[in-house]
């Protein structure tokens, strides 16, 4: 039974539910040498850039602490700030819509586009609209949505899916991108080279007419200021400015957690975000607007889609601090090797491993909390100090709690817990373990064990038990003195 006000999970349409378990998808990705080479090069580049510009600021840790505290304040008073934001946007001529889930947000946007009579819309790169599958919903209703960010355009023209939050086409190298442009753009000169400059020029030509004639634009938002109703989009290419400025109608889809309380708070996030994200002191363009700016017809759709479910877990809610910078992806040893597609959600990498299962409920993304080595690099670089490793362990416990009490894993772990809780049982167990030594065949690691232990050693190192345990040796020799 559900009733009014029950926090609930994301709609089943959209792109936050993995269709395959992570280990299966990761195994496929690991077999793709080109993908691994592309990812290795790109993540190494961005890590170095981020490191250099973060080191320039003497007050980075103070900014980081303030960023985390501001976001925690937003989350603790989210209802108040949302009402304040709505009032400010409305007072300045904008219209605020609320969406319980992705399906509802898609319906709202579709009806707004239909009311304009437009059959094509231009889009600014937006994670929220990727999350809810807005392009597919518009397409099904006969409206084509043109992605205008270069990487999103590469993904769209390649009939592909994004694999990174900031650089959705990070899995593609320049020659693959050239081939996609030649095949899909139509009017491209076959002499097009794979120089990034030439490819960017081809995208400029392809989109220029669309920008200058578009009547409706759809964007996301990097932040919304509760006290003023101001929205902001941070970008590089100018496609964002084109979409936010030229079309008569602007529709912005924003997750409810994107708010900041005051204008002053932006001074923290406009330092944290660009340096963490693209590794620049400042991104080339940031646009900010409040309500119906310069006579536009302006709508903002506030999206829940599983955010309230995330908010309801005191140990998981800080994932909603996330500002989608993607620094955690770039430092993650798992992401660097598997890429984003293996996670099966538009939110890949460490933040995806904690956010996607919370948006959908852990039962629907049960393998993602395990897609990590818990090394902690993600926490170190996170500009809002989300303790991702601790949250992963918490979510693993939630996944384990969904399994039946008599599952082999529960039984084995229960037995292990009882053994380790008692010194005498533990000592006996260690003595008993040495009878397993013949299975190691004189090697330092146990490679082959009979089922069900074979599953354990397939992916983990299990040292061969010593002939004598430390405890026994100590007791026998008095710590080497006898």
């Amino acid at each position, binding site marked *: 039974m559900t009733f009014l006000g*029950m926090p609930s999970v994301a709609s089943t349409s959209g792109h936050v539910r993995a269709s395959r378990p992570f280990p299966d998808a990761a195994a496929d990705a690991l077999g793709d040498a080109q993908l691994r080479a592309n990812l290795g090069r790109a993540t190494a580049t961005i890590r170095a850039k981020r490191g250099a510009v973060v080191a320039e600021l003497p007050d980075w840790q103070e900014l980081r602490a*303030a960023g985390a505290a501001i976001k925690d304040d937003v989350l603790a008073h989210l*209802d108040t700030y949302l009402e304040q934001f709505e009032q400010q946007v409305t007072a300045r001529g904008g219209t605020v819509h609320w969406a319980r889930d992705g399906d509802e947000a898609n319906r709202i946007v579709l009806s707004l586009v239909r009311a304009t009579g437009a059959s094509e819309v231009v889009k600014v790169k937006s994670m929220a609209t990727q999350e809810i599958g807005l392009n597919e919903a518009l397409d099904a209703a006969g409206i084509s949505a043109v992605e205008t960010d270069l990487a999103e355009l590469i993904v769209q023209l390649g009939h592909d899916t994004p694999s990174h939050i900031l650089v959705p086409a990070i899995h593609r190298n320049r020659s693959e991108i050239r081939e996609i442009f030649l095949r899909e753009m139509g009017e491209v000169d076959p002499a097009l080279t794979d120089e*990034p400059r030439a490819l960017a020029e081809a995208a400029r030509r392809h989109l220029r007419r669309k920008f*200058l004639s578009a009547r409706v634009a759809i964007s996301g938002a990097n932040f919304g200021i509760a006290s003023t109703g101001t929205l902001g989009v941070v970008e590089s290419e100018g496609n964002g400015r084109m979409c936010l400025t030229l079309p008569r109608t602007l529709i912005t889809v924003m997750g409810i957690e994107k708010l900041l309380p005051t204008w002053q708070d932006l001074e923290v996030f406009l330092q944290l975000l660009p340096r963490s994200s693209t590794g620049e002191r400042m991104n*080339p363009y940031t646009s900010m607007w*409040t309500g119906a700016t310069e006579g536009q017809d302006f709508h903002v759709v506030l999206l829940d889609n599983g955010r309230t479910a995330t908010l309801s877990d005191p140990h998981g809610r800080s994932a909603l601090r996330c500002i989608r910078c993607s620094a955690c992806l770039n430092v993650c040893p798992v992401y660097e090797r598997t890429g984003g597609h293996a996670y099966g959600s538009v939110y890949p990498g460490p933040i995806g491993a904690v956010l996607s299962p919370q948006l959908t409920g852990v039962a629907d993304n049960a393998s993602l909390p395990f897609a990590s080595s818990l090394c902690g690099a993600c926490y170190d670089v996170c500009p809002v100090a989300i303790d991702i490793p601790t949250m992963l362990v918490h979510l693993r416990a939630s996944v384990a709690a969904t399994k039946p009490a008599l599952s082999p894993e529960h039984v084995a772990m229960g037995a292990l817990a009882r053994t380790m809780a008692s010194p005498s049982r533990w000592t006996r167990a260690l003595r008993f373990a040495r009878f397993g030594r013949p299975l190691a065949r004189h090697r330092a690691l146990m490679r082959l064990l009979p089922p069900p232990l074979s599953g354990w050693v397939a992916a983990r190192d299990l040292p061969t038990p010593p002939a004598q345990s430390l405890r026994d040796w100590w007791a026998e020799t008095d710590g080497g003195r006898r």
Partner: protein
Amino acid sequence: MTSARDEVLGRIRAALADRPAPPPVVRSYRTAGTAAPSIELLVDRLVDYKATVHTSGTTADVLAGRSITRVVVPDGFPTEFEPAGIELVREPADIETLDSVSAVLTTCAVAVAETGTIVLDAGPGMGPRALTLVPDYHLVVVRRSQVVVGVPDAIAALEPTRPLTWISGPSATSDIELDRVEGVHGPRTLDVLIVD
């Protein structure tokens, strides 16, 4: 039937049933007004992001150096900085005009030294946002008194409800192998003239 608004707000209140009380925000980072701005730093940062900076000469000199003969000039642009001998295109300029003239000359609201950022707020001499977006070339006149140290100083100096455009170098992308390339949809050339 309950509205989505009421339901989402109700869900939030239910989710916060444990009444979290986060610690107060501590602003121990460098806030506005804690240091004196440096023109040298602004120039260094602008050049690093591939803008061309002039600290002497006139707007006419800069435009002539680019072989520009026609330029869009927004309402309220100070006459003392109008370029002599160059055709000025005044507002209102529709998109087709902006596209064909392909050069624009503006003032700015504030310039941030530490990040090499110039902010426009659609005030006098800056025009509506399309004016500085559609043309392929943008020349900005920055007065020394408009230069601030860092992002907090800029935030303190700006009025949030105006349409704001923060510009750090020419249009760029890092979407292909994270290799930065200047020049995509926004102006591909950004010139900055710093005046007293």
